[in-house]
């Protein structure tokens, strides 16, 4: 590890802290329907949308109606993208003349982009037409992020409200997410990225002869506009296969920093928004602190492992960090920082190949996802995922102080525990069971790039990634019909089966009366509560995966120390 490496992380974190409060306040104002700096321009547009769509933003929905609206909206989006990908050959803006996708490929991509996963079995530059990219994938990059943000706001409302049945209006939340948050930032930052050299055109690929005489096709297209929402909406689906390792998606250190900030920006700000809704900023900062501890620990772990490098390589006389699969222009620090952030959130964008990290370095992205992507987490999803853990922690802590547990004055009872544990069950169920089935099926194991412990890591990583809607791949796995269909199903289950109990939980809390706070009430922002929350996240969330991880990255690491390589 180097000072400059750590300095990059410190500067990054300082910028994130500085961004959290102003953006958090902005989000709180937007979703409370208050005036914001952009209202003069956007309020008329917002009003027009409501009039055309006949939405009454003031009419709030119960948790169940909110979910129905979300499901209806999602179902239409799923069908739209599937049809688009199956017919792109006949549609405009296809200068490379790409063919229609196969049924399983279209299904997988549609589920993937709908759920904010952006798991890609294909290479974008040789599969997707510009029209598919823009009208299909980019559309979902926006609305899947908008849906996540809307659900998070509904959950925040539910947790912080008292004695009300409703959690908000889905259509209004969605409209505001897109209009006030995702679109303006995408336009401004998109232009910055263009200025930094990311292409934004509809040209055919340029064919050039490189210095060493090789023929090369320079991929291009409407990239900058995709790039910004890829990170800001924690989507992660690259325009090209190399994702943010490609110079066209991520040309320099500044864009790298910008892309990393974009990934955490909204998720970190939402902790402040939560505090604002709770009328107690300490509640929000406690979540921010919990997330920060896990983030810094994850980065330190993977950076230490990558900077230490591979002892087998060292024996060959090559010293220094592990740079296999990394862009030399980013180096070990910026690569592990990017990878940590990308798997803390549901982005899954990569600027290096996680498959080539050292075993312990590669364990960090895996564990980040297995924690439930609550380390800031995906746009919206991180916050409501964290709140589920908070509910469980409050329950256990409350028992320990001898009082029926309360979160923000509302009692956590049977129903809340039931819903929280249902949500927690989703990850182990949909990650481990499909992995267990697939690892024994030749149709699946044939697609692995390696065998032995590393092959197992690839399979485990894949199902963890799709269940958590991350979308990053360990690399090495290539898709086929079986995997396309199964991972598509898992992505939908991973997202929606978590959202349902989370929103109903919020609705249940919204309907509760608030009880008075006394010295007999423990505070949910004290350091000891943060420590307990961390304990619950690690023991209930991550320890479940210890047996599986032990057979993957952990045994790989131990074998590497003994000189075995894959």
């Amino acid at each position, binding site marked *: 590890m180097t000072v400059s490496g750590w300095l990059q992380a410190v500067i990054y974190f300082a910028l994130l802290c500085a961004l959290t409060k102003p953006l958090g306040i902005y989000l709180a104002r937007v979703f409370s329907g208050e005036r914001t700096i952009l209202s003069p321009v956007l309020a008329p547009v917002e009003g027009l949308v409501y009039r055309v769509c006949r939405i009454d933003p003031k009419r709030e929905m119960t948790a169940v109606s909110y979910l129905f609206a979300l499901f209806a909206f999602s179902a239409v989006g799923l069908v739209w993208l599937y049809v688009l990908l199956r017919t792109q050959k006949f549609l405009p803006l296809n200068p490379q003349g790409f063919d229609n996708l196969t049924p399983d490929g279209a299904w997988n991509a549609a589920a993937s982009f709908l759920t904010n996963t952006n798991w890609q079995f294909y290479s974008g530059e040789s599969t997707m037409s510009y029209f598919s990219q823009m009208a299909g994938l980019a559309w979902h990059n926006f609305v899947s992020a908008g849906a996540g943000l809307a659900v998070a706001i509904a959950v925040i409302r539910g947790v912080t409200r008292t004695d009300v049945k409703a959690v908000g209006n889905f259509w209004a939340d969605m409209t505001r997410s897109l209009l006030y948050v995702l679109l303006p930032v995408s336009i401004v930052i998109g232009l910055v990225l263009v200025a930094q050299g990311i292409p934004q055109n509809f040209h055919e690929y340029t064919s050039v002869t490189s210095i060493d005489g090789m023929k090369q096709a320079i991929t291009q297209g409407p990239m900058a506009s995709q790039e910004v929402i890829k990170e800001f909406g924690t989507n992660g689906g690259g325009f090209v296969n190399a994702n943010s390792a490609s110079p066209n998606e991520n040309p320099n250190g500044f864009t790298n920093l910008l892309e990393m900030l974009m990934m955490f920006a909204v998720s970190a700000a939402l902790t402040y928004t939560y505090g604002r809704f709770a009328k107690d900023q300490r509640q929000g900062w406690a979540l921010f602190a919990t997330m920060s501890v896990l983030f810094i620990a994850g980065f330190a772990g993977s950076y230490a492992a990558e900077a230490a490098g591979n002892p087998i390589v060292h024996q060959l006389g090559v010293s220094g960090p592990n740079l296999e699969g990394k862009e030399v222009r980013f180096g070990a620090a910026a690569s592990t920082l990017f990878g940590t952030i990308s798997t803390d959130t549901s982005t899954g964008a990569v600027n290096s190949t996680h498959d080539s990290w050292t075993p312990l370095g590669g364990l960090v992205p895996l564990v980040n996802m297995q924690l439930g992507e609550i380390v800031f987490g995906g746009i919206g999803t991180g916050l409501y995922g964290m709140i589920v853990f908070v509910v*469980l922690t409050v*329950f*256990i*802590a*409350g*028992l*320990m*102080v*001898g*009082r*029926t547990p309360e979160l923000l004055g509302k009692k956590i*009872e*049977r129903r*809340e*525990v*039931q819903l929280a*544990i249902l949500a*927690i*069950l989703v990850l*182990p169920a949909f990650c*481990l*069971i499909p*992995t*267990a*089935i697939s*690892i*024994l099926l030749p149709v699946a*194991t044939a697609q692995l790039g390696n065998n032995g*412990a590393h092959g*197992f890591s690839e399979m485990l990583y894949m199902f963890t990634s799709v269940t958590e809607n991350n979308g990053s791949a360990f690399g090495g796995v290539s898709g086929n019909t079986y995997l396309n269909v199964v991972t598509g199903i898992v992505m939908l289950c991973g997202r929606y089966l978590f959202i349902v109990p989370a929103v109903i939980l919020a609705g249940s809390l919204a309907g509760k*009366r*608030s*009880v*008075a706070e*006394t*010295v*007999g*009430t*423990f*505070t949910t922002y*004290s350091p*000891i*509560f943060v*420590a*307990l929350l961390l304990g619950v996240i690690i*023991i*209930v969330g991550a*320890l*479940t*995966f*210890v*047996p*599986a991880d*032990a*057979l993957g990255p*952990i*045994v790989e690491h*131990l*074998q590497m*120390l003994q000189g075995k390589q894959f």
Partner: protein
Amino acid sequence: MITSRRIDRRPQARSLFDRAIVTRAVADSFTKLDPRWQARNPVMFVVEVSALVTSLFFVRDVIVHNQTPGITGFDLAIALWLWFTVIFANFAEAVAEGRGKAQADFLRRTKTDTQARKMVGGNAVMVNANELRKGDLIRVEPNELIAGDGDVVEGAASVDESAITGESAPVIRESGGDRSAVTGGTRVLSDYIVVKISSNPGESFLDRMISLVEGASRQKTPNEIALSILLSGLTIIFVIAVVTLGPFSIYAGTVQSVTVLIALLVCLIPTTIGGLLSAIGIAGMDRVLQRNVLAMSGRAVEAAGDVDTLLLDKTGTITLGNRQASEIILADGVARRDASVAAYYSSLADETPEGRSIVALAEQDVAASGNGKPPAGGTFVPFSAYTRMSGLDLAGGSSIRKGAPDAVRAWVRERGGDGASVLASDVERIARAGGTPLLLAQDKRILGAIYLKDVLKPNMKERFDRLRAMGIRTIMITGDNPLTASAIAREAGVDDFLAEATPETKMGLIKREQSSGRLVAMTGDGTNDAPALAQADVGVAMNSGTQAAKEAANMVDLDSDPTKLIEVVEIGKQLLMTRGALTTFSIANDVAKYFAILPAMFVTTYPAMQALNVMRLATPQSAILSAVIFNALIIIALIPLALRGVAYRPRGANAVLRDNVLIYGLGGIVVPFVGIKIIDLILSALRLT
């Protein structure tokens, strides 16, 4: 009525681990293996199924003569220890039930078939107690058992209630007032009473008490259900983690036996709290019972732990019940003799301690005046919470009243007199000093003020400090005027007071507290208290009180000691804390168990895994077995903690949380590392694996 010399003749004085109780519990541990019983507890049900499956694998080993060295013995050892795990959990529950069952047996003996004199048209007819119905009247003579619960409608008698309360000193039960309730199964010692039966057979207080102490009608409390759901959820998660490990290990080329996977599963699921959960609940109820409080449901005990506001009656709770009249202050121009006689007459029929003390104070003056006998034909006007006065209406049309100053002044005004400022400064002086001023009036004229002195109970200030440390606010309820009330409140150290309380203002206070999100507990005994007892989240009725109060409350204090409420609150808190502490401990244990079992499972395929064997356990088999044995023994080791409850000191929630996280969270991580290592050393020394 409350004596400190309580002779306890009931079996509840036994220790938790009384020999008879333990013997009975051992037998019960085996009968509770019935799967229908285990199914109530999902965690232990999984363990029982696991024990059964490993036993079947052992039987298979024996039949097919499994040649793998040591495997038959290993399978047997795992199977046996899994059975022990279930039996240990059963034992914990059986011990917790032990005292209650013993007490129920005792009460059943009390409930022998009693004969009763049923009053039919003025004549007594002998009938069996079980033929009595609500509303029947029975007459009970000395040395007879009262055949059923009811209210005394005629007469007064001393009653031995030791069968119910354990209190040997007889109590007075009389018609009218707040001491009219009698309980079936108690014995009349002197005089006779006529009782109006208030319950049908099978629904009596004694029946309810038997079923409560025995735990027959025990239902899981809301908090216990919520915790069970959490534990079941964790169990499902670990079932998924372990079952999928089967295929994973096949891919890794190290096929795991079902026995080993089951051992891992049982170690990971929260068996410690799962096995002790019902014992903790039963023991909590039992602790309440040890204090001679009968909780009508576990829910009420749990709610007691949540209480934010405690309403305490001043009289009997904060002060000793008997206020003493110490002085009669005369109004201008009133002769001492006239005032004393009026005070004496108006108090003669007043059986309250205050009334008697006034009689005693005035007696000398009255004797000197020679007017010892009150004029015939007078009617005594008893005290009521509405009029806040009592007195005597004389045959000649003249009336005497004594009572709360504002009430007496209003009464005088009604009669055309004007006593607005008479003795005002004296009344205020008495009140400021914490005494109770009474005004004494005859018709239009105020004669004087009576100074009743309140005597505070000892150690009340410390108790209120304890409550404040727990975050509980105490409010003193009194019929006194605000001045008196505030003086006593200050002296006793309560947080707030409600003066000049009537049933309505009391009810209003409860509702106000509740609507601002507080849980309210109160004690009461009179019929007037019944609506408030029902409205309060925790209502404790005094056993000496009326049937109405006892029915409205969710707890009955058999000792009729209102300060008991404070102890019930502590027990409620301790109950939840014990659950939370053991849950945290149980979950934290998993860390060490992973380090014991995982390397053992895979070390043959991946020798590098030996690096994770941080405890340096001897062999893979002894590692797994040690973890399973630890998992079983920790249940036994924690039974005393589960039954007695975790140590409780009244402090703020954040301090309690910090300490318990350190003790049970960190302790839960460390203890199994040590325990498993020790068991492994013993197993190796004995060459058992």
